[in-house]
């Protein structure tokens, strides 16, 4: 709370100040770059404790920044990690605090007005997690049940839209972060947890007894997740895009996927156990930065 207010104040203060749009020059001049990371965004980006961060997107960004360093001919490039939240990530990228955000940000049309996105590295599908013992298998069986989701995510809006369109009536409960929402499901305050599949899989893998939970039902929404950059900085975007496209072309990206989503990962050495879905494979084969709205049309 305190943090998001601070950021809000910072955003106000910087609202009219000119922000350095040439990120490459900024990195070259300071020999340092700030990477925005998340504390618990499944296997995409998470903390190992202290100021150490890891995950699929974090490793992609580290590879991208190695390319940036090579391109700029820097002998040394300091990477500062800054933990961001759903609420402050966009203002922090806009005002220049964060140069490259490597978390779990959905690329959509509304956000493209404020920030830019690198080519999509992961396509997320919003799913439902339930307790195995509940016998729930689809969203239509959730009528009259309590459904948990996390405040400040697109899933809240999705759920509301679904409720209105299909005339189902959920009792919505909101966790303040994903761990809280999962706790709502675990303690029985909610019958289902609607969220991005990777986050659900990650939370289930880390829970006390993963066999008690399962992911069921139809895909409620498809969202491209991408690395976020400052808007109107084509040179930096091109460098980042080229670097990611090279990973996709060489097939290294699927090795990274296997490392983070299919094999045991630190700190607890559990597996998320999720193979890349068709949409993700398609995005690797045809690199693009289309917003979520384009996926909905298909």
């Amino acid at each position, binding site marked *: *709370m305190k943090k*998001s207010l601070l950021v*809000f104040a910072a*955003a*106000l203060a910087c*609202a*009219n100040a000119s922000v350095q749009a040439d990120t490459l020059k900024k990195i070259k001049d300071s020999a340092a770059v700030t990477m925005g990371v998340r504390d618990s965004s499944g296997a995409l980006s998470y903390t190992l404790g202290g100021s150490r961060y890891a995950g699929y997107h974090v490793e992609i960004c580290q590879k991208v920044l190695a390319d940036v360093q090579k391109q700029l001919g820097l002998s040394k490039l300091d990477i500062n990690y800054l933990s961001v939240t*759903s*609420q402050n990530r*966009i*203002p922090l990228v*806009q005002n220049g605090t964060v140069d490259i955000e490597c978390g779990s940000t959905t690329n959509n049309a*509304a*956000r493209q*007005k*404020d920030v830019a996105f690198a080519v999509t590295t992961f396509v997320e599908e919003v799913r439902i997690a339930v307790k195995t013992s509940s016998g729930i298998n689809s969203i239509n069986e959730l009528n009259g049940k309590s459904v948990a989701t996390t*405040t*400040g*995510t*697109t899933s*809240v*809006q999705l759920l*509301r*839209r679904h409720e*209105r369109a299909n005339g189902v009536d959920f009792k*919505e*409960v*909101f*966790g*303040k972060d994903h761990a*809280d929402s999962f*706790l*709502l499901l675990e*303690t*029985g*305050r909610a019958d289902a947890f609607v969220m991005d599949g990777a986050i659900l899989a990650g939370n289930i893998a880390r829970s006390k007894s993963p066999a008690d939970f399962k992911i069921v039902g139809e895909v409620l929404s498809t969202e491209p997740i991408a690395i976020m950059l400052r808007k109107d900085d084509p040179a930096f975007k091109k460098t980042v895009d080229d670097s990611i496209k090279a990973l996709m072309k060489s097939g290294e990206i699927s090795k990274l996927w296997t490392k983070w989503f299919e094999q045991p990962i630190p700190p607890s050495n559990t597996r998320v156990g999720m193979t890349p879905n068709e949409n993700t494979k398609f995005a690797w084969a045809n690199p693009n930065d289309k917003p979520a709205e384009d996926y909905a049309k298909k």
Partner: protein
Amino acid sequence: MSAWDWQVFCKDTIDQAIVASCFGSGNDQSYLDWLLSAWGWTLKVSALALVLALMVGICVGVIRTLPHRTLALAGDAWTELFRNIPVLVQVFLWYFVVPELLPAMKRLPSYFLVVCALGFYTSARISEQVRAGIQSIPKGQLYAGLAMGLTLAQTYRYVLLPVALRMVIPPLTSEAMSIVKNSAVAFAVSIAELVMFARQASEETSRDIEIYLAVTMLYFVSSLGVFALARLIEIKVKVPGFLGAKQ
């Protein structure tokens, strides 16, 4: 950052289209409707918590001044217990931990548990002020009351409390104003109040500044309302020639 766009409050929460009247109709809801309902939740949680806090706080404050060791100790324990645990932690304890111990509490609505957490936390602070108020009255008044043949309860009711409670109205006003602001912790356990509205609506509309300004304004208005009300009570109940009232 582009210019401010207050139209955001007229948008429908589903299709983001601007509604002409700014208020949704039927099942449709605009962000303005949502903002007002969020304000309602903030006020509802604050008001209920304040009632609970005043009732419990005054009782515990009185108990702590009684010439009865065990009771006074129990009162002290209450105050220290609830005063020394951060309010957000208390909200989580009531929401996640207590219902595990008492399964019957799982059926209670979550706002009830938040009211308990916020009310008991504030009651600890109020009890401290009430105790200070009572103890600031010269001991002689208690003895005089007892010497006149009043019972201890009558002495409190007719001699000590009428003065002590008037005296603590200003600090109680601050408590009442902070309860409105502290009610922001309720968002953590799924109450659709102002902070939760601010987080979710700014995520959906990307108009963080307009939304946070509106929410700030409503908190300010609510606190000011509480202050005005308390001031009115203070003036109404003042005793002429006493406690700073005009002679």
